[in-house]
């Protein structure tokens, strides 16, 4: 279903995206796929020597999940901008849920655009990413 500008109101939530738990296989795949081979995502020993409790998930993996909450809502070509701040670490076993809320409706460059506040939260409700996005919608 095409999402239209007129159908979206400030305060609306977009559908949540609940991801399955992050596991080490996913971190290994993401290391190869993303080009981020930092051992803190792959090797407990090296992660601990860097002062971490063990391997941590790539921040950009969580941001990729946050991108999926957008592309699950609108076609990717509608995304004008997308940002995220990394607010807490995610670990293997964590279950990340991505959420978005419409904060503004406006016009930019002759397009109808909506702004969203985005968040990724873990199973304890702790926010791992705080983000935003600007989406162009048909009238």
């Amino acid at each position: 279903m095409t999402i239209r500008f007129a159908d979206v109101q400030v305060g609306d939530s977009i559908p949540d995206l609940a991801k399955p738990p992050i596991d080490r296989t996913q971190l290994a795949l993401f290391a190869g796929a993303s080009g981020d081979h930092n051992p803190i995502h792959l090797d407990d020993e090296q992660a601990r020597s860097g002062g971490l409790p063990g391997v941590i998930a790539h921040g950009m993996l969580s941001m990729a999940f946050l991108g999926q909450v957008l592309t699950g809502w609108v076609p990717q070509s509608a995304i004008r901008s997308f940002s995220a701040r990394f607010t807490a670490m995610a670990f293997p076993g964590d279950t990340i849920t991505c959420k978005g809320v419409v904060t503004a409706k406006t016009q930019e460059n002759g397009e109808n655009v909506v702004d969203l506040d985005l968040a990724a939260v873990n199973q304890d409700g702790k926010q791992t990413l705080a983000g935003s996005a600007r989406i162009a919608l048909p009238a």
Partner: protein
Amino acid sequence: MKAEELVGKVYAPFTVDVEKGRLRLFAKAIGESNPVYLDDDAAKKAGYASLPAPPTFAFSIAMDAEQPFKILEDLGVDKTRSMHGEQIFDYIEPICAGDTITGVQRVVETFEKKGGAMRFIVTETLLKNQHTRPVANLRTVIIVRQG
């Protein structure tokens, strides 16, 4: 080198080929099941030239060129003392499999927080495709723990 001296620095351009197999692996790694990201025909039906790169893949293009670490090398800072603080993408045109992307990274600003305990360095990387059209602009905030 001091971080302030890096502001305005423009790094040498880098070029990365966007490969279909790599995009499929990225889609698999993030648990993407939308056929637009996996199947050429579905991508073309959706109006893309080939499989589109997902929204955050533009950062991996810069990562392949090891761009995020160049400022750390210049500062003589160990990778383990740095974190990715924030990432911002502005999208201009889709990036698709088969594209050859050229990027140029520029150091935009730097500042300290928490009484100098943390140094923030902001870079911008403009990506253009093989038609020399801009496709995306990345703003990356790197945080270095100091002292």
